[in-house]
């Protein structure tokens, strides 16, 4: 008893240390991430000299992104020639392009998955660059629809590396004070590709007299040479300039412990975790709406130029090159300004980008309505320049709130959101085109554009808090590591600052909760206080919107529930925690299957359960649904005997049961605890709980109102209202 109290006191001191360190270092860590609160920026040259930065990574990735556009541009321009030569209808080629678009949409996810365990992003970029170069080359030899489908699909898959990996690589290769400009530099290459591609196609197809086959051969060779130019690209590692810098504020010069494989997040866990970040969620919503405009826009602008202004393919190529040039001009003008805005106030930067994008969309509408050709050209030029800010500013806003290893996943989700919007846009605007003609379409695509831009801009509301959240996570991780290395004891389970929401309804507010090895604690509160929700957060059935859950010092906040079972966290849910249509024995076996026990040891554990609960042995072949309430709870508790967890979370054990049955069950709980399993007992009945435990928590309206010795809680009449204590007095002892 006194040992438990002494250990709890040590643990509380350790947690106080973590919280204190986190608060103390937060502003320093923010500066390490480049948010310094004013607009001071050093010149690009000065930053490069100070940090000995090479331009090569930007150039290498720039070469890759330019080469990536060749195949797609070639198809856009040469579709009529391909159709005539192969005798394949334009509709079939359009269907093949749709398949390519689908591949481009899904490909970033496997790229993110391939790069999450090890920093091999540069290698993936080079390999996929060589792949799409060969595919472009092969396109020149295509003779059938099947081959056409193959080259387009494979090209779409290989380009996933651009979306998922390029921005994260640039961020990790540059210090925060240079990132907007580095991204702007990269985006300049991207847009230069819009100028180079038409020039190259024009040179090969016009001056050199090649057919579409010859053009693809030329593009393939050029793409291969450009990819070879990027072969010196190296991965800078995850978080070299940000998360590592934040870690260094806790302890400079110490080696990080390797992440425990047991608690390292898997692919879908990372995706789910990224989706829980409010800034990311809002930006993804904005991307879906913006995608409605962005992807069909290229096609519709082409039709608009052809039908409204009678521009042929060559003139349209010149027009798109002009748009690329205005975008480059916008990027050059915006780079340093964006850097200053981010350093001073990231939220303001995001809002400004939203406004700029919305303004750009208005100019698209004006361009669509302009009866005067130069007026249309000027309007679209302004649109190009304003939209030029999109890439770097959105990149920095989206990725700066996400830990380095998870950035490819966020990028992949963003591209999928754009693609989803694009599909909707293609369907939607085909109808608008049929009804109102191409000029009407150009005006209407501005509508989702403006809405999407404003939604993206509104993400600024959360970005500051999300930056701090990421900083807190890193600082907490580092401080916990430091305490462990210093030999300090940490609690077995520690929940800190937990917020949880069901949709828009927040039900947990800044909840702290701690359990030690072998301890039995009670979690008390009236109906709807948030007790069961907190158990869900601990067992992984629900994920918090803020805060952390640590098990033996390791962060398990976003780990899947089934992985937590293997770690030793088991929950007996409230109500009847059994499978009704299965027999008693089948229920017991099913508990074992969750941890993959071998048949012999599982049968031994089942026999132990039946010996412990003779009543269950009598009804071993009965369906669980036919058991009484008490028998069903016995069966639910048997989970602990099968799984042998380190911590058992029991929700509402006594609910609706006769006192004598409750007494039997509590004896069982005591026995489980005395075997070394920590127990969290969620109860509405204070008497039942306080008869068993020495430490209690009391929750009210989603907040933790009491954390202390159970006898102290009994003295808190403000919390324990009379109604709460009635009806269970006969259980004393």
């Amino acid at each position, binding site marked *: 008893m006194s040992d438990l109290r002494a250990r709890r006191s040590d643990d509380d001191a350790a947690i106080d240390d973590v919280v204190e360190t986190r608060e103390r270092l937060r502003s320093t860590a923010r500066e390490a991430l480049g948010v310094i609160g004013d607009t001071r920026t050093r010149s690009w040259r000065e930053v490069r000299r100070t940090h000995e930065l090479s331009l090569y990574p930007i150039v290498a990735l720039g070469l890759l992104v330019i080469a990536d556009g060749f195949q797609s541009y070639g198809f856009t321009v040469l579709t009529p020639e391909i159709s005539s030569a192969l005798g394949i209808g334009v509709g079939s080629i359009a269907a093949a392009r749709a398949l390519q678009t689908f591949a481009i949409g899904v490909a970033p996810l496997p790229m993110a998955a391939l790069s999450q365990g090890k920093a091999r992003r540069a290698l993936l970029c080079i390999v996929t660059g060589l792949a799409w170069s060969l595919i472009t080359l092969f396109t020149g030899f295509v*003779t059938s629809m099947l081959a056409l489908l193959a080259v387009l699909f494979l090209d779409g898959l290989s380009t996933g590396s651009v979306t998922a990996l390029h921005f994260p690589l640039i961020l990790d290769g540059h210090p925060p004070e240079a990132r907007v400009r580095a991204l702007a530099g990269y985006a300049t290459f991207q847009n230069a590709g819009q100028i180079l591609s038409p020039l190259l196609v024009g040179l090969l197809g016009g001056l050199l007299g*090649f057919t579409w086959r*010859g053009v693809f051969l030329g593009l393939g060779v050029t793409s291969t040479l450009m990819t070879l130019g990027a072969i010196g690209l190296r991965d800078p590692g995850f978080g070299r300039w940000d998360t590592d810098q934040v870690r260094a504020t806790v302890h400079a010069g110490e080696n990080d412990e390797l992440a425990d494989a047991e608690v390292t997040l898997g692919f879908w866990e990372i995706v789910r975790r990224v989706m829980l970040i409010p800034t990311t969620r809002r930006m993804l919503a904005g991307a879906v709406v913006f995608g409605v405009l962005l992807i069909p826009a290229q096609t519709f602008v082409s039709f608009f130029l052809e039908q409204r202004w*009678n521009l042929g393919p060559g003139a349209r190529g010149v027009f798109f090159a002009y748009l690329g040039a205005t975008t480059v001009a916008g990027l050059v003008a915006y780079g340093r300004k964006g850097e200053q805005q981010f350093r001073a106030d990231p939220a303001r930067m995001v809002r400004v980008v939203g406004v700029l994008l919305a303004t750009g969309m208005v100019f698209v509408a004006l361009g669509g309505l302009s009866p005067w050709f130069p007026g249309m050209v000027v309007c679209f030029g302004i649109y190009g320049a304003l939209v030029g800010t999109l890439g770097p500013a959105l990149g920095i806003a989206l990725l700066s709130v996400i830990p380095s290893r998870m950035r490819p996943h966020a990028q992949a989700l963003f591209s999928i959101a754009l693609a989803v919007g694009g599909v909707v846009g293609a369907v939607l605007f085909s109808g608008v085109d049929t*009804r109102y*003609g191409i000029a009407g379409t150009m005006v209407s695509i501005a509508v989702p554009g403006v809405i999407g831009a404003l939604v993206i801009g509104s993400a600024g509301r959360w970005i500051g808090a999300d930056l701090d959240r990421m900083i807190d996570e890193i600082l907490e991780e580092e401080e916990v590591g430091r305490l462990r290395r210093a030999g300090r004891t940490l609690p077995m389970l520690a929940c800190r600052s937990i917020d949880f929401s069901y949709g828009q309804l927040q039900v947990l507010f800044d909840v702290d909760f701690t359990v030690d090895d072998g301890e039995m604690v009670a979690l008390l509160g009236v109906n709807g206080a948030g007790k069961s929700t907190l158990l869900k957060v601990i067992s992984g059935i629900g994920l918090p919107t803020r805060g952390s859950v640590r098990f033996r010092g390791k962060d398990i906040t976003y780990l899947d529930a089934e992985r937590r079972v293997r770690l030793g966290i088991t929950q007996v849910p409230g109500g009847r925690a059994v499978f009704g249509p299965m027999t008693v024995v089948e229920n017991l076996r099913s508990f074992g299957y969750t941890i993959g026990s071998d048949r012999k040891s599982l049968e031994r554990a089942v026999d132990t359960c039946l010996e412990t609960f003779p009543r269950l042995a009598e009804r071993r072949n009965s369906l669980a649904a036919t058991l009484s309430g008490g028998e069903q709870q016995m069966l639910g508790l048997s989970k602990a005997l099968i799984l042998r967890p380190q911590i058992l979370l029991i929700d509402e054990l006594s609910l609706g049961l006769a006192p004598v049955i409750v007494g039997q069950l509590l004896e069982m709980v005591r026995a489980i605890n005395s075997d070394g399993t920590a127990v969290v007992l969620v109860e509405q009945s204070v008497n039942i709980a306080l008869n068993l435990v020495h430490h209690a928590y009391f929750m009210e309206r989603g907040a933790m109102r009491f954390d202390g010795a159970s006898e102290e809680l009994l003295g808190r009449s403000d919390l324990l209202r009379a109604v709460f204590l009635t009806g269970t007095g006969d259980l004393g002892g």
Partner: protein
Amino acid sequence: MRSRLSVACALAALLGACSSNLNFRVDNRLHWDAPAVRALVTLPLPIAWTMTDRPAGSFAVFVDRAPVRPGRTLSSVAAGDRACRSDRSCPDAEYLSQRQVYATNAPSMILTHVAPLLASKDGVQVHQVTIVLLDPSGRRIGESAWTREFRLRKVSL
């Protein structure tokens, strides 16, 4: 084993081209005389061209549709049309002209009808006419195709 087979099939599909007669340089043997590029025209529309080094055979003219595949005859225009396949005389010239496909030995012809593009509501529509070469047996020669765009006011149906 199965994956190797798949790779082999994919390679065969991709490399099947190697045995074919692929065009890598633009075939400049045919020059358009009429209509002018993207000219605004009216019906009936005379179209004319000049060809140097003309091989034995005829021309096939396709309006607003892809030509038949290299090595195929104009009967492949009726591919998938069960009613036509059950009729020995089908496809005939009338069937083909209803689908805006014409065969001619002369380097000119007159288009009396061009179907409006239903997908578009624009008053002036861009159409395209494509010419390919047919050998004496009526099969398309190589991949060479010559296309010209012209503009036509849409006629309400």
